């Protein structure tokens, strides 16, 4: 068994143990679960930090250094400058450097501004209009009568679900109007169905992972048994 195989074996064993510890939460909260949970979060954060540093300090600087034209160097330099300024936001609690934290407002403003602009444009063109179009498209007679019923159900479900969160459905005393009360209940039903579907998908995903993990665990065991 070569080194790669040993490393793979070690990986399989460690993975199997950690999986069992995570699954042990079925029996209750314990220290091993929390320890593995902290290990997962820490490894994930460390991996992210490593990836960011590698990308920014290695790949980006390497590209900036390798850039031949000054314009391209500026192109790589400006994000670095903004990133450095953004680091000053972390010194806001200090006395001396705390005053320099205002420098971080520049890249922060840039991020918020551009992020808001991009998000608004994307929400309108990528979410709102397509969703409205999809809802309207559902009203079709192509699969009559089920297609029409499906479209009607989607339309009613969308409208009633939106009215659930509307404050207009309540009078001045805070009581919900009788008509709107039934509309809201209908909307709440659609919301419950949607949440149930999402929960079902979550359970499915969980069970998939459960099965996948046990499959991998048995694979390791069989690997050692069968050789």
């Amino acid at each position, binding site marked *: 068994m070569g080194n790669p195989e040993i490393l793979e074996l070690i990986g399989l064993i460690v993975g199997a143990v950690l999986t069992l510890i995570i699954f042990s939460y079925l029996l209750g909260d314990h220290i091993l679960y929390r320890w593995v949970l902290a290990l997962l979060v820490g490894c994930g954060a460390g991996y992210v930090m490593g990836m960011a540093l590698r990308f920014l300090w290695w790949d980006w600087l390497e590209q900036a250094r390798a850039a031949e034209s000054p314009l391209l160097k500026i192109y790589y330099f400006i994000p670095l400058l903004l990133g450095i300024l953004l680091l000053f936001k972390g010194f806001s609690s200090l006395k001396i450097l705390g005053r320099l934290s205002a420098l971080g407002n520049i890249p922060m403003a840039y991020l918020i501004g551009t992020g808001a602009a991009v998000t608004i444009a994307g929400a309108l*063109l990528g979410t709102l209009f*397509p969703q409205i179009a999809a809802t309207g498209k559902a009203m079709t007679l192509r699969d009559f009568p089920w297609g029409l019923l499906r479209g009607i159900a989607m339309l009613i479900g969308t409208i009633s679900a939106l009215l659930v969160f509307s404050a207009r459905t309540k009078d001045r005393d805070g009581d919900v109007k009788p008509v709107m009360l039934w509309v809201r209940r209908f909307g709440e039903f659609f919301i419950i169905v949607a949440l149930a579907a999402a929960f079902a998908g979550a359970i499915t995903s969980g069970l998939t992972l459960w099965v996948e993990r046990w499959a991998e665990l048995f694979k390791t065991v069989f690997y050692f048994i069968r050789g």
Partner: protein
Amino acid sequence: MIRCPKCGKMNQDSSRFCNECGATLPQTRIRCPKCGTMNPIGNVLCMVCNTRLLPLDMKLPEKPRPSEGMSGGVKGISLPSLSAKEGTPEPTTLPDWMLGLTPESAGGPESAAADLPDWLTDMLEETTEISGEEARDVEEPLAPQELPDWFSALTEEAPVSPETPAVEESLPDWLADMTENVPDRSQTPPVMTEPPAWTAAAPPAETFPSSWNQAEAPAFVPEANADLPDWLRSIADAPTLEEPQSPAGLPAWLLANADAPVPVEEPAAPELPAWLLQGAEEIPHLAPESVKPTAPSSLSFAQEPVREAEQDWLSGILPEESAPVSPAEAEPDWLSGIPFEEPEAAPEPAPPTEAVPDWLSGILIEEPEAAPEPTPPTEAVPDWLSGILIEEPEAAPEPTPPTEAVPDWLSGILIEEPEAAPEPTPPTEAVPDWLSGILIEEPEAAPEPTSPMEAMPDWLSGVVVDETKSAAVISEAPPVAEEMPDWLQGLTEQAVSPLTEAAGIPSSPVITEAPDWLAGLEEQEKERPAPGAPVPLSAGEPSEPESAMPGWLKDIVPPAESVSGIGAKAIVVEEESEVEAVEAALFGEAEVPEGPPIIEEAMPDWLKDLTPTEMPQSPVVEEIAPETLARAEVPAWLQGLRPPGTGPLPSLPEVGAAAPEVPGAEGQLARAEIPEWVQALRPAAAAEHAAESPLFPDLVETEGPLAGIVGVLPAAPGVDMPVDFEPVPLPEIPEFVVAHAQRWQQLLEQPRGIKRPVAQQRARSGEGEMATRWIVALVLLAVTILGLLFLGDMHLSQALSKPPIEHLSTAIQALEPGEPVVVAVEYGPAEAGEMTPIAEALVEHLQSRGVHITLVSTLPEGTGLAQGLFVTSDVSVQALYLPGSSSGIAVFLNDDLKDARLLVVLTSRTERLRWWMEQNNASHPNAPIPMGVGVSAAVGPQALPYLETPVVTGWLVGLPDAVAYREFRNARDISLNRQLDVLLLTHWAALGLLFFGLFYYLARGKKGAV
């Protein structure tokens, strides 16, 4: 521009230091603290906003004195004074009342200042300085080029240039204003080449100095007589008028004064005039001890050789009985300057001064306002008097008949008006020092000087009447006396002032050296001693009225009634006992017998005209308010400058109280301090007449100056409420809101000591719960292990091919080798167990098509997972990290993914899919990049609305779709199928557990639950 007093360099205004020598420059402007306006230095109030510029207790700043070079001879008006070289006359040679006027008295200015208030000390000091300059000027006669033009016009025949001389530029503002206020002076052509009118009738050439000879004197224009008053015209026309020529024409008292010793030549005490000695001896109590007999500079007269000639001239006009007396010995100093100098006696008769004696030049120069624009009235005014009586009675703004009747040479006397003088300049600057104490103020109330005193020259009237009483006296006098020249009045009025101020020998010069008409009064005075003056001043000096008094003066002498009336008024009105004593000693309270004066025979015709035809009735003395007059003495600008403690402020009478016992004038003044409109607002008075407001009948002001007034409009509702305002009732608050607020209020008001409810710790799981947990765990574990171990090739599940899976597989199958395809790995290690089968299914298909795959991820860990997809393959693909979430995606889609044929998004998070969907539509709104989506089973239901959009070609949701995709492509993976079977079993097991719990809940109820 400010001239440096040290080097004479002109500096810019507002400069504080000289640019040439660095000397401190006098301040020329005062900035208003309120509006910032630069006011002249002498302004007490701002000329824009009327804000007071000087504090109440601040002294009046000294006005910058014009320098010699600048003014060219602008000097204070005074008679010739002793120079420093010649020293000052012996203290004993001066009367006490004169000594009291001098700042140098009592041994020097320091001691004098110690006895005087500050504001008086300042005035004295200033006077001293001016006197010093005057003395210097007298010693050094001005060269012709140094004389101002207006003065040159007096001495030269050439017409005077109408241009304003440079002297006027250096004039202070108050003088400039006065110059402007002089009526018609600027409009009348300068005819100063003519001699004064009174000189036409004055002494002949043989008795006058050569400068006054006909040869050198300017030609007399007969038309000038048209401007002369009648009494002067009579003088001019009278062939027998020889008053200046004949020694007998000189008043006896003048002659006696002429016998006064010249301090320099004979400064010994015996040279003191007899009337002064007598006054000093007989009225010792009137002479304050603090006043030391020191010759004041203002009273010191130059003792140049020229004066001898002048005295000679004077000797020519002295009476015969006094002619043998040496003029220098018998003539007092202040009279020594009156005679004109004789050219032969003058050692250096300067051409300009030939026509005008030196002592007159010093006076004439001091009247700059009349100089540049000589007018006929100015022409007729003798120069030595033109600068003296520059103040005009307040109530005579227009040339009243008396003023018109005043000879032209006296018209200059009436120039200055106390109110018209904007600048608080001490009168001593323009008045000779010996008169400064007398002419500090002109009587304000002299609207119609109709008393007989007006017929007298001011300088004589000042002798007779106290200035504090003259106003009232003159105002009540009949208009008959308008012909009396003002200069006589002024002199009559002012004569008492120094007397009263000196509180010593006021009547001495009048009594001992007085003319006959005064001597006559003196006799009456003996008979009736004045109250408060135990010893008559001139008791032992009987004089001969007719012999000592020239005829022309006898006419001027007011009748006995007039004099007595004036004296009576003065005595009764004056509060100070000393003044009463002095005046009583002067004039006596007994009335002079009516009838023409006994010296009428000697009266010249021109003086006969002055004789009032009707004796005025003595006014009611009680009607004169001494307080009013006393206040009238001090102009407003001086009152404002009065330092605290120098005098009691008038106390305000009680409002609403009975009329004060003090004369009405004082009460009026006190009341005038509160405007009537303010008085009307007083609640006590206003409340009685205030009508109830129909709007607010019940409102009564309780505070402030309006307290007690009924119906005062309230400020807030009456002002703030608009006309069309309609009150809107407050909205009704729902009960639940009130209850909610009450709960919050109760919670907030709850003391901290009370133990607040905290979240109870969750009850420890019981055995039933643990059993349930164990049961669920064992069921799932058993199902999974059994399924993985024992299912084998038995396929429980069947992957269903769906349109999205087929469409996606078809789209990837349609790709040509080498076409760019982007695969976005948007899941982490936690979701890798579910997503990896989906990703591998799609990546294997793409690799089989030979397309150019670009792996990207917005998650840092996504790039590592993406690279793991190709570990088993021969192709190593570098994954790109897209920072900036949606912004990074937008940048990537706009720059690097323009020509991509397919975009595959593998994600287990809804927002990542939404980002890619939105930015793809936003970046390519017309032709978005076709997308293939592989999502987890948890994201599938939420992402379904996006997945059903046209841009998405197909999608895979969870492990079942991944297995179905492989089976659709005939790339089946047995392990995945087994996992799918086990997943199916676990679903059934989970479903069984859910139903078990449901049944258990239904069977045991809620209590059955732990």
